[in-house]
């Protein structure tokens, strides 16, 4: 044991201890770094404020003298009750209903397809699948989620409508299917929300304690009974939250529906005709290079504001439900 003896003391014993804070660059840097990081974090608040400011000044009430906002020219009543949307014609109508109709028909079709399939896949992954299969499937779902919206739009246009919808509905059932139609947009939208629903619902299902499942099996249940009558009800609010988030994504989805459903504002429930969603209108209006200051240009903000409020409402609801769910199991 010559260890310590062989080594000389690192430094001579210290004399005079000083613990007091003193100015040093290190201390100044600490404070500086903290301030910079706080700045970064508040940037997200600034973004929200900018969004709100933008909508309020461009859609609700203009603060720049000499200009007017959208709702200073078009009354809220007209906006909500008029059944026609035709900003580009001489006889301008600004009734949001056709756009809302297009948005909800397409998002509705998407949900009817995407939500059950996503949930069933989540149940399979969390209750039935072997860990290896799950590990293999997760990246595939991630790839599915990562495919850009434009690509889905193209897929709807060149595959879904000509090779899936037309053979079934037009040839077999004799229903006319437009090239641009709400159905194909809804179908690809359904595919697009599957990853969201699946991964969020799976998280909720897996958060259900094992004991609950075991209690179910101990009563002689089959896997079907346990999954559908024990686990799904226990994870219900988590699943609902995932549904809400997915629907809100479907409502805000832009390029796929813009390409697949076309740009024909129509107040109808026929999914085989062309329809226009709020998002598709915004893209279309920006294509024509509408000059700033015109009512057409301002209508972008009015539609954007409506969309923002709807998705925000759904997100807040989803987060609220999700937090309720977390409280139960954490």
């Amino acid at each position, binding site marked *: 044991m010559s*260890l310590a003896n062989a*080594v000389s003391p*690192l430094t001579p014993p210290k004399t005079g*201890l000083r*613990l007091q804070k003193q100015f040093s660059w290190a201390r100044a840097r600490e404070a500086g770094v903290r301030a910079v990081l706080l700045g970064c974090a508040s940037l997200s608040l600034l973004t929200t404020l900018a969004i709100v400011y933008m909508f309020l000044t461009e859609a609700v009430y203009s603060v720049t003298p000499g200009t007017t906002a959208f709702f200073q020219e078009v009354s809220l009543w007209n906006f909500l009750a008029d059944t026609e949307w035709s900003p580009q014609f001489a006889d301008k109508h600004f009734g949001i209903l056709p756009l809302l109709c297009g948005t909800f028909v397409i998002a509705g079709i998407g949900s009817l397809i995407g939500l059950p399939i996503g949930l069933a896949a989540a149940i399979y992954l969390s209750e039935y699948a072997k860990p290896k299969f799950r590990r293999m499937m997760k990246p595939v779902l991630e790839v599915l989620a990562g495919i850009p919206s434009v690509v889905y739009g193209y897929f709807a246009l060149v595959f879904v409508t000509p090779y899936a919808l037309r053979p079934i509905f037009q040839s077999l059932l004799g229903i006319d299917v437009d090239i641009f139609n709400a159905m194909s947009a809804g179908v690809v939208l359904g595919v697009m929300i599957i990853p969201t629903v699946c991964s969020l619902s799976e998280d909720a299902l897996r958060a259900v304690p094992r004991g609950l499942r075991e209690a179910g099996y101990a009563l002689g249940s089959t896997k079907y009974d346990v999954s559908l009558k024990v686990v799904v009800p226990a994870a219900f609010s988590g699943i609902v939250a995932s549904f809400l988030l997915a629907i809100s994504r479907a409502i805000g989805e832009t390029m796929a529906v813009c390409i697949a459903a076309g740009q024909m504002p129509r107040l109808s429930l026929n999914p085989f005709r062309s329809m226009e969603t709020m998002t598709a209108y915004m893209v279309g209006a920006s294509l024509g290079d509408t000059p700033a200051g015109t009512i057409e240009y301002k209508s972008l903000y009015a539609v954007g504001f409506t969309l923002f409020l709807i998705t925000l409402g759904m997100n807040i609801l989803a987060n609220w439900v999700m937090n309720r769910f977390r409280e139960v199991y954490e």
Partner: protein
Amino acid sequence: MTIMQSFTELVHQRQQRESAKRNRPVESEVTKLDVRNLNFFYGEKQALFDVSMTVAERAVTAFIGPSGCGKSTFLRALNRMNDIIEGAHHNGTVLLEGQEIYAPDVDVVSLRKRVGMVFQKSTPFPKSIFDNVAYGPKIAGQRNHKGLSEIVEQSLKRAALWDEVKDRLQDSALALSGGQQQRLCIARALATNPDVLLMDEPASALDPASTSRVEDLIFELKQNYTIVIVTHNMQQAARISDWTAFFYQGYLIEKDHTQKLFTTPKKKQTEDYITGRFG
């Protein structure tokens, strides 16, 4: 009273070993740390009640007591590690060489450089062995690679780890065994050149062989450092410490020379605890 006798024996053995090594008296009387009337709270819950104690320089002071009695809390109060815990607060004074460490103008960072700490669970950084030991000096401004290598080598030698790792300093520290990791953590604490070393059950997760190496190490280190150690192992306390303090339910029951505390405890609770009647 066989237990008492065995403790006496242990202490005696140690004294012999010690006096064979050097001619210094067993216990130094210079006060390094002076704690007065410390009350400590975790939010509403009080963990320490009016604790007063001095810690002697260049000596080993051991804290013993049943689980949850506040040993770790007291130890962490000595280098303000409790500052990180949300809602923790205290009153009373803690003096390091006569200076209040909780005074508002005290820089915790420089305090912790003087009062190092080793934890129960070894916590190597997920980096190389070299980087682990060099971390402290590096952040303190030592940039020169040669100087760093020197410090790393000396610290590892002091922690009795050098021979085992000198050929693989660039390997990940996570690849070391548990005992080696703990000695690495001690080396890492030594590299910042502290005056006081706080150790919270440093050997509780180690096998007997590693434990005895760490004990030897503590024994060597006390020539240069003031060491405060928490231990659940009373034989260990008897083997290595000069002073022993017994905590019970947040109170400091008794603190005395190790030999006296283990052979002629003044308080009934202490005697009950060391003879194994509770705890």
